[in-house]
């Protein structure tokens, strides 16, 4: 299981608490967001909360509401570019974006690649299995070697929570976290917020119900950060063994500040009542130690979203899923491809959101040094 040696400054924990140390890392070391020696370390916020000195996108916990708003608005403009016959702008011409994925991914990697290419950047893709990592090179040496070849943005996915924070503290290129262990997946959260806003308007006050494996879900953690910043009402529901510490019965110490101020409901039927957004999560079998979930069929029976359960939510409630779906387990095929599902639209919006994020990072770095 992913231990977080790489995240540093995290005390060793006994086994079985894999969700815990990663989160503390992000909470305890906000300074890791900024590199040592970076210019303007204490620059005051400007332009309505936009720092103008953001170097990295690691999680949404250090984003202001205005900054999120800014990215969501820019995504509208990016979507318009994607709808053109000629999907290409010269905006990031001469910039190099490198995607470095230590975990398998289709949609996120292609989404970043498409986003970079539409904006005119050069995109290089490296997957760990085909790189010198498989020859035993350390993470730090790998990214330093890659940075020596002149890259502007490093888009990184890693099975260890906190790995992008570590890398961001060591290199000058901007780092975008494309998923780190069980910790965070900020661009997924942004595209979820954007998709909700396109359908529901203002997210504030809307009820969002997230169901399933919240303990191991980086999507849920980042989503909850984003939703709370935008003023949504978040309800979570899942098997007790898959709830984060603090929400799990018998635990008091929360494993993440992300999960404060949200509702926890035992029964899925109750959780779905009055929901404007229903988001079942994938059971991530690759991250689970044995014993968290006795049986997938039982899970499906108790927590799976089907037409009957979806009918308990508000009429016209959105059905979202971060993908990839395990149809027939957390979501039935019927509703996954039904009228309320916006799952494919999430994927399309992901490109626009990542364009907005890359634009924000690259445009800044152009004149900022």
């Amino acid at each position, binding site marked *: 299981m992913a231990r977080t040696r790489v995240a540093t400054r995290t005390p060793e924990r006994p086994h079985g608490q894999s969700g815990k140390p990663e989160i503390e890392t992000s909470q305890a070391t906000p300074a890791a967001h900024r590199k040592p020696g970076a210019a303007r370390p204490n620059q005051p916020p400007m332009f309505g909360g936009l720092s103008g000195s953001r170097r990295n996108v690691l999680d949404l916990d250090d984003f202001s509401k205005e900054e999120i708003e*800014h990215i969501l608005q820019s995504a*509208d*403009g990016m979507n*318009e570019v994607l709808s053109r016959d000629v999907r290409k*702008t*010269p905006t990031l011409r001469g910039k190099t974006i490198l995607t470095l994925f230590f975990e398998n991914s289709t949609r996120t990697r292609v989404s970043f690649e498409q986003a970079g290419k539409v904006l005119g950047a050069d995109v290089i893709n490296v997957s760990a299995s085909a790189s010198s990592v498989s020859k035993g090179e350390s993470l730090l040496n790998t990214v330093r070697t890659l940075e020596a070849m002149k890259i502007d943005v490093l888009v990184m996915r890693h099975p260890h929570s906190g790995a992008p924070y570590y890398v961001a503290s060591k290199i000058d290129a901007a780092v975008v976290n494309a998923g780190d262990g069980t910790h965070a997946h900020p661009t997924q959260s942004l595209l979820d917020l954007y998709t909700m806003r396109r359908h529901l308007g203002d997210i504030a006050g809307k009820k969002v119900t997230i169901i399933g494996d919240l303990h191991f879900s980086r999507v849920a953690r980042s989503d909850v950060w984003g939703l709370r910043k935008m003023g949504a009402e978040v309800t979570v529901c899942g098997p007790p063994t898959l709830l984060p510490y603090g929400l799990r019965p018998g635990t008091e110490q929360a494993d993440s500040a992300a999960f404060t101020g949200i509702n926890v409901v035992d029964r899925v039927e109750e959780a779905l009542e009055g929901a404007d957004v229903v988001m079942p999560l994938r059971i991530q079998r690759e991250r689970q130690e044995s014993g968290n979930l006795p049986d997938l069929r039982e899970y499906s029976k108790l927590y799976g979203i089907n037409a009957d359960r979806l009918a308990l939510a508000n009429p016209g409630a959105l059905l979202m899923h971060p993908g990839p779906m395990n149809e027939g387990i957390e979501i039935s095929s019927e509703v996954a491809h039904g009228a309320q599902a916006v799952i494919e639209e999430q994927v399309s919006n992901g490109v626009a959101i990542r364009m*907005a994020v890359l*634009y924000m990072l690259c*445009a800044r770095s152009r004149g900022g040094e």
Partner: protein
Amino acid sequence: MSSDQLRRALVRISHEILEQNERPVAIVGLHSRGVELARRISDLITSIEGVETDFGTLDPRLYRDDSDSASFKPVVPSEITFPVDDRAVVLVDDVLYTGRTIRAALDAIRDFGRPSSIQLAVLVDRGHRELPIRADYVGKNVPTARGEDVRVMLEEVDGTDGVTLLRQSEATAYGGGQG
């Protein structure tokens, strides 16, 4: 520039556009205040000639060569729903300054097609061009110093019509403009 002067300038520009173009033109406003000016010019042309005028909007931000200074504003969707191929397109902006916005707009419009000609209408030309770009239709030429700022206010955005010249100190307090 008072609100009456602003209105008269737009009426004159609309007549000049009609005078210079035998075939119907498309009016494309540049975000953000150019959009409102373009909408007015397009309405004026419609009322003068009694024909509908194609109206679109363009955000040239993604085509700028100095985008770090512009990145603090969100990118806005461009709306050009008509074909621009083989027709005259009139770009409309509030202030012509360095010419860099217009250069970006020329690149941007190219991604929508190949107009037979591209013309430029601006409410204020304040000088200090950094590129070989000029306007075909000018509301008012205003000589300025670089440290000053020209502030265009429009009913739709600012609640009132008018153009004021902000002196150096005022311009700094205000945050400066893009040009």
